[in-house]
């Protein structure tokens, strides 16, 4: 058994939910890179969304000021997170809601299952929610004999196909219209035989399929984009109206929310409701946003439960250099601009949080050791930071997590990796001018023994890269020769 350091915050437990992949990132990425259809679908979709985002962001003169505001609101909230959560609980309770506290995925799943059972229902409708995907709620409900129906179009596609989401905003981004048509034709009961792959026809098929479900649903499960500590108000930002259906028509609403989603005051939303839609779908505003506070007599669900989830968030908060990963508002702009994501897609990251933000968030939620390859799933090009509406410095955090990974390996007295050996050798070489000069000349000599591949254990580096030619002259040689000139 692994010794547990008492007093250290818990990470997300193993064996439940979707934060850990079965393969390391390089292995999964190699498979994904071989899928040409996937790369075409992703290239098409991400280039379209990048262009839209740039267009609507350019319209906003004070975009940088809004980013600063978003960053500082989140940082200020995290600095007193416990106090904001206590205020949120008080406000929700005062307005007729019930607040539950879940330390991890298992506890949250137990709470939600018990709440659904208490209603006597054996099915729930669901609004798209990253958090319930993270904790594997659908699987937990299924084990208890409760059917969960995803109602977001892309989540429906993923669920019908028994697949996993591959993008925060557009979970079926890895599928094109032809593939979606085939999934509907095969798995959707009562779908017209002549269904075409026109997106309008596909949306209409989803509308008809879910209509009866919405009108008869008694229990809904949602996530939340924001919660206001002052007032107890919850917000869900969406497009299709499936969110409104779930938040309005059923008798009972259960919302599962990560503790980092709280913001102090209503006024803070004037920032996030400008940043989020433009960064995510590239729209000036998303079609629908719903806000509700506890229970309103005669309007909407008369029973409201809010489940506050930790599942590794406190462990993330404890690392000062990593905690700003909790500032993420799930816009997915960093995925869309990432050259790595665009080529390998979301599944390769093995977590419901893919892309650059996933590479810094997943390892912190699970502990770095369980997602050790993710901090390396980046070229550190910095595009993600420029796109992030709350200015999360993802590249710096990736480097920090790589260092944490190395330190943890050292602590466990494992054999150092080839990279660690190489870095240690480089540090020794570069610490002394004469050694460094000799190394430069050595590299030049290597031109004669040239191959495009390095020998093991460095062959991993050249498996996917060409080895560059060492220069004919080192800088030092050039400088010395230059000094020799009269």
């Amino acid at each position, binding site marked *: 058994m692994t010794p547990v350091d008492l*007093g250290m*915050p818990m990470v997300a437990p193993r064996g439940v939910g979707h934060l850990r992949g079965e393969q390391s990132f390089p292995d999964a990425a190699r498979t994904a890179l071989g899928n040409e259809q996937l790369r075409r679908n992703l290239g098409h979709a991400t280039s*379209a969304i990048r262009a839209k985002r740039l267009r609507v962001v350019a319209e906003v*003169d*004070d975009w940088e*000021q*809004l980013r*600063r*505001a978003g960053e500082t*609101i989140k940082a*200020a909230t*995290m*600095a007193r997170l416990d106090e904001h*959560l206590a205020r949120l609980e008080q406000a929700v309770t005062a*307005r007729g809601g019930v607040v539950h*506290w879940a*330390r991890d995925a298992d*506890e949250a799943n137990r709470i939600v299952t018990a709440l659904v059972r208490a209603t006597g229902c054996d099915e729930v409708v669901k609004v798209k929610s990253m958090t319930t995907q993270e904790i594997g709620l659908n699987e937990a409900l299924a084990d208890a004999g409760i059917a969960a129906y995803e*109602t977001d*179009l*892309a989540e429906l596609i993923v669920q019908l196909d028994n697949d996993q989401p591959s993008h925060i905003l*557009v979970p*079926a*981004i890895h599928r*094109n*219209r032809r593939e979606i048509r085939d999934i509907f034709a095969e798995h959707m009961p009562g779908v017209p035989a002549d269904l075409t792959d026109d*997106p*309008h026809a596909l*949306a209409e098929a*989803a*509308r008809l399929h879910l209509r009866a479900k919405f009108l008869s649903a008694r229990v809904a499960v949602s996530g939340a984009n924001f919660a206001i500590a002052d007032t107890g*108000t919850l917000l869900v930002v969406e*497009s*299709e*109206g*499936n969110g*409104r*259906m779930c938040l*309005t*028509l059923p008798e009972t609403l259960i919302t599962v929310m990560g503790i980092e989603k709280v913001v102090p005051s*209503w006024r803070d*939303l004037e920032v996030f*409701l400008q940043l989020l*839609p433009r960064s995510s*779908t590239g729209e000036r*505003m998303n*079609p*629908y*946003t*719903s*806000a*509700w*506070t506890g229970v309103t007599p*005669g*309007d909407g669900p008369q029973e409201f439960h809010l489940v506050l989830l*930790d599942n590794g968030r*406190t*462990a993330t908060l*404890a690392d*000062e250099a990593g905690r700003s990963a909790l500032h993420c508002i799930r816009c997915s702009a960093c995925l869309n601009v990432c050259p790595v994501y665009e080529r390998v897609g979301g599944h390769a990251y093995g977590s419901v949080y893919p892309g650059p933000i996933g590479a810094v968030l997943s390892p912190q939620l699970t502990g770095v050791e369980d997602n050790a390859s993710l901090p390396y799933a980046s070229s550190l090009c910095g595009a993600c930071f420029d796109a992030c509406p709350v200015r999360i410095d993802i590249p710096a955090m990736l480097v920090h997590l790589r260092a944490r990974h190395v330190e943890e390996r050292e602590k466990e007295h494992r054999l150092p990796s080839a990279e660690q050996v190489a870095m240690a050798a480089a540090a020794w070489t570069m610490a002394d001018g004469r050694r460094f000069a000799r190394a430069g000349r050595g590299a030049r000599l290597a031109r004669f023994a040239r191959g495009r591949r390095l020998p093991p254990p460095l062959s991993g580096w050249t498996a996917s890269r060409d080895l560059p030619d060492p220069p004919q002259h080192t800088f030092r040689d050039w400088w010395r020769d230059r000094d020799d000139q009269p």
Partner: protein
Amino acid sequence: MTSREAMLSAVRAARGDGDVPEIERAYARTGSHPPGSPEAVALLVDRLFDYRARVTSVQRADGIVGAVTDALGEASRVLVPVGLPEGWVTDGVVDDGFAPGDLDGMDAVVTACAVACATTGTIVLDASLDQGRRAITLVPDHHVCVVRANQVVDSVPEMMARLDPTRPLTFISGPSATSDIELQRVEGVHGPRRLHVVVVVEG
């Protein structure tokens, strides 16, 4: 120790006792056009068209009934909230707490709104008596919404400042839409597929 106590004390320990950073609010709190100005109304109309909502502009309040009647077209069962101003709809069915299935039998719904934001083309409903509970503007497939000029603000901060967060709020920016298939926007999924906004220019 309860989970609540355990989580709160873990969060307290993890966040440490560092200073709370100051929040930088250097962004614009107002837009370029004053609330209710002809420029703000014109911008709202432009943005609504961009979302493929239908828009009818009328000069004064006495033009509302004609515009609403035209917008409703062939709709025969027209739902209205209990507090809809007299004379907007000639033959409406007043919401009586209908079950979702009954709401599904309605052809259209006509409401007022709480506030509209021009820059983003957003209309907000706050469940006041002239707008009704949330379900009535959700289930019918056609929503006709009347916006008066004095309800139109330019920017998002101005819109938020006019709202009471403890009321049930629905922010609507164009008809129901999805971008889930190849990120191509398709209007019309689960919410009303037709949004028709009647703008009263001197309202």
